[in-house]
């Protein structure tokens, strides 16, 4: 890449905690956050999900937001993550005013819309219904609520490519910095659980009622999750100008379309192969330079073999260590790309490899993911490839390295 792109701040909220410290501890002690649903008011009480263990009211209290303010959960999760990222990067209000903000989300304000939709459209019942939630229904509104909590960004936009949304925010943000449009772009994604998409995934029959088992021969589907993560991406020059501490480097990225099916991946993983290959080519590194792959690894029968086929095409038979962290957090859909990017940065700075929870049987004899936490990894972890794939075959791969 023409300009070195550094990360100077990161914030994360997921089923395994609020903030990087809690998430790191859970990853290192192998404590997952997936449990029977308890916060989302759904009939599917049999579902296991990765919920953030806070009510909206509790989050509003943490954020200092008056309890009668109309808020959607996607935005509250996003605000917690953005606050941490901005604080770590040490951004002043002037810094924010010359930064862009890109949020990946698909659910947006659906958590509130689905509670009041019948009231909204009723000929008689709309009176007394909280119609302000009509204004917060769409993706862009969730984004602006998050952005405005931190300050006055120069520009905001929202990417909605399903489960690759947050990863694609990195792609646009990186290009904006490389092309000189901005010195600094805050990128990431935010998504709460909703009955809408829980039921949607349920109709696709890709939810496992048991804890999900990514990359395992017995895998039977995914557990949904929720959360948010934002990262402050800057040109190295801008970061050093303001004396910011660098916590990681975005070395490469790729996005490609599988162009196969709206909700299934191709057997040869063409889109994933192209995305990973582009990320490596852009960074100018060889496959053997990759020390770990954080797989998309949802645990559905279809995703995992397709992703592995693509990895075999990129890496040959010498696969680097790999795992999926979806067993910890559930599949956090639009936010997964940035939540897992934070996990990758934590792995780089603390020199450990996150494990695949609940794993017992290989899909093929040689396909053994990371399952044990060792005190010192077999080789230094310098470079990590992080995958996020979405519906519509929207495949994105990000390559991170140590600062």
């Amino acid at each position, binding site marked *: 890449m023409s300009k070195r792109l550094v990360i100077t701040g990161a914030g994360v909220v997921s089923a395994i905690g609020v903030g990087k410290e809690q998430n790191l501890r859970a990853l290192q002690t192998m404590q997952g956050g997936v449990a029977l649903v308890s916060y989302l008011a*759904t009939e599917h009480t049999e579902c296991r999900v990765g919920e953030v263990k806070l009510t909206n009211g509790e989050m509003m209290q943490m954020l200092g937001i008056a309890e009668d303010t109309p808020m959607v959960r996607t935005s509250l999760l996003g605000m917690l993550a953005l606050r941490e990222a901005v604080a770590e990067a040490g951004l002043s209000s002037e810094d924010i005013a010359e930064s862009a903000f890109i949020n990946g989300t698909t659910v947006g304000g659906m958590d509130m819309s689905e509670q009041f939709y019948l009231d*909204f459209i009723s000929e008689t019942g709309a009176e007394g219904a909280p119609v302000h939630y009509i204004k917060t229904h769409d993706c862009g509104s969730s984004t602006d609520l998050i952005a405005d909590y931190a300050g006055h960004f120069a520009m905001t936009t929202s990417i909605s490519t399903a489960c690759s949304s947050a990863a694609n925010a990195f792609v646009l943000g990186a290009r904006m910095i490389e092309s000189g449009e901005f010195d600094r772009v805050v990128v990431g994604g935010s998504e709460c659980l909703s009955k*809408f998409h829980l039921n949607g995934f349920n*109709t696709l029959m890709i939810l496992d009622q048991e804890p999900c088992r990514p990359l395992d021969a017995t895998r039977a589907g995914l557990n949904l999750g929720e959360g948010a993560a934002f990262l402050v991406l800057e040109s190295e020059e801008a970061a050093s100008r303001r004396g910011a501490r660098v916590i990681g480097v975005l070395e490469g990225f790729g996005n490609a379309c599988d162009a196969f099916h709206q909700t299934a991946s191709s057997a040869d993983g063409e889109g994933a192969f192209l995305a990973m290959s582009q990320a490596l080519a852009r960074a100018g590194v060889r496959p053997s330079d990759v020390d770990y792959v954080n797989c998309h690894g949802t645990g559905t029968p279809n995703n995992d073999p397709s992703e592995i086929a693509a990895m075999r095409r990129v890496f040959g038979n010498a696969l680097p260590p790999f795992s999926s962290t979806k067993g910890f957090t559930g599949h956090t859909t639009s936010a997964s790309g940035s939540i897992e990017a934070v996990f990758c940065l934590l792995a780089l700075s603390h020199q450990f490899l996150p494990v695949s929870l609940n794993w017992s049987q290989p899909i093929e004899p040689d396909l053994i993911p990371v399952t044990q936490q060792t005190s010192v990894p077999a080789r230094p972890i310098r470079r990590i490839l992080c995958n996020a794939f979405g519906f519509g075959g929207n495949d994105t791969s990000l390559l991170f390295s140590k600062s």
Partner: protein
Amino acid sequence: MYVQAANQISIQNPLSEEWIDAPLTCSDSYCRAQDPDFKPYVSPIEGRRMGKVLKRALAVSLKTLRDTGIEHPDAIITGTGLGSVESTEAFLLDMCKNGEQLLKPTHFMQSTHNTIGSLVAIQTKTHGYNSTYSHKQISFESALYDAFVQLRAGEIGNALVEGHDGTTPSYFRMLELIGYVGNEGQVACSEASMATLISSTPSDSDLCQLKAVKLMHRPSIDDWKNAIARLDLPSDTVVFTGENGHAANDRLYSDVLTALLPDVPTVRYKQWFGECYSASALGFYAAAHLLKAGKLPGNASAALLLTMDLDGDAALTLLAR
């Protein structure tokens, strides 16, 4: 950058520029788009399973690709405020009325915002860059901005850029409840589908050039002033505004126009196309075709498209002959 082709489905005659000389008028507060014959673009069997927005997206995309002779664009970048709202609503209503036990997957599969751009990629077997933006009134400009950044950097040679929004009767009612549409004197709440092919190389049939795209969040008058100053506007520029007869919306535009572009002629494109989240995609389309046809006021050589919304997001796009 060159705008090689642009096609629309809206409340005007579809896939046609007849509106330039004979615009249809809509006096209702809510107006659905005029659908074309979809047969040249989607087989009846496939079409039966698709929502309206998806069929319209295929029609405008495939026509635009055929117009330009490009089979696989380097990028497909879509803007949509609500995605396939018809499908979203069908799934949501089924769930709200009948509970969570007997739902069917088709509507959910089509409800995701990027179903639209993915469908175009699947139908054209295009493996290139694919992204979707959903940011209220500037969804289309967000997509255009992504294409602009990549074209300028030489990362891609061309991009199919799109804007799509449908409006169901119940969504119209919801937007009416919050006062966005349906006000006295306001243009109709409508629907929009538009696709344009933008290339870094010129062709014989180009509509116009794309000179600049910029997105802004809660811009002050000073921010507008700086942004417009950087454009180096030709003296015969016309401004395309998103004024729609809604007092607070129109004040956003008049504040900027009075302060910074007081003597510049304006075109209110929403008088032809109505209002929806992707209306500005039609403003782009109209400006491109009117530049090509030489039918702008004073036969102007440039069109500055301004987009603003009541929540503070804004965009400006400069097209020139």
